[in-house]
């Protein structure tokens, strides 16, 4: 296998598998937050900002995978 094609495949595997977990996690967060907002609409503003922060934390593993695939594609 050529080194170029190995790089492309490695980048694809990195982001492809890295995006599975955060996708599920963010879905759970959004679902639970909407459930909580539906039960108690008065505190929905408070819940919304907390939801955004926890989503960003949850997303970070996907972003690490993305950065790794950028490094493989562009920097190495």
């Amino acid at each position: 296998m050529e080194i170029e094609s190995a790089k492309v495949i490695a980048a694809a595997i990195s982001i492809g598998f890295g995006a599975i977990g955060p996708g599920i996690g963010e879905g759970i967060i959004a679902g639970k937050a909407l459930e909580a907002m539906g039960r108690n609409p008065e505190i929905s503003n408070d819940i919304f900002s907390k939801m955004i922060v926890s989503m960003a934390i949850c997303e970070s593993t996907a972003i690490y995978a993305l950065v790794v695939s950028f490094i493989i594609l562009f920097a190495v």
Partner: protein
Amino acid sequence: MIINNILLAIPPLSVKPDVIFTLFGINITNSILGMMLVNIFILLLIFSVRKNMSIVPSKIQTLFELPFVWFRDTVYSSIKDEKKAKRFFPMFFSLFVLFLVANQLSVVPMIMDITTNQGGNMVNLFKVPTSDFSLPIALSLFIIILFNIMALAISPLKHIGSFIKIVPVFKARSFAQLANALLELFLGLLDIISEIAKVVSLSARLFGNVFAGELMIIIITYIASFTNFIVPIPFIVLSIFSGLVQALVFPLLTVQYMAGTLANVEE
């Protein structure tokens, strides 16, 4: 580089910023010029809003006061201590405004199309500053080091003691307590790594989101001749949205980190 081989039409993309000129031995890159542009824009915004400021707000003042009040309420509700929140709020808000403007620089028309000739190849004069890894890593390093210095200034022994938990080892009375204390000592040493991980996660999150947004727009635009015009619009909207969210998340996470670092010291 590789993507260029696959899709020939795409303009050269690079993680590394291009050097425009050298000033006293310092390389002035296009991301630095983009940062200057963002700074000038923020200063103009501040002065133009401040000039017409009044107690009865005009329409444009209301437009700027609404996000300010919302952000202030969010920060104040997560710091709890009113006096401390008032003291540190300007830092978080300036981070928020900086990223809010910097992430959207690519949306401003014409600016991203200005190119200069650098040794035969055309190079963009401006680059979105947050899509260069230098700015996110510099700001997150500054912030984490600042919080550690603040904690050291309040109580040096307690702060060092929260990493090297040597005291429970001497206080242990039985073998089980000693084992627990040694485990806690090891976990405390791991906290040093978690401080470094905070820097990495803060900076990589911002850089990854902004750079991915740009990359996706460019790839969608140049993937075929018929996708040049209307097709990229949803992706541009997505990139704007993720830029807004990241501008919000960075300061809010730093607020959380500050509360966590100072909580060890102030018990």
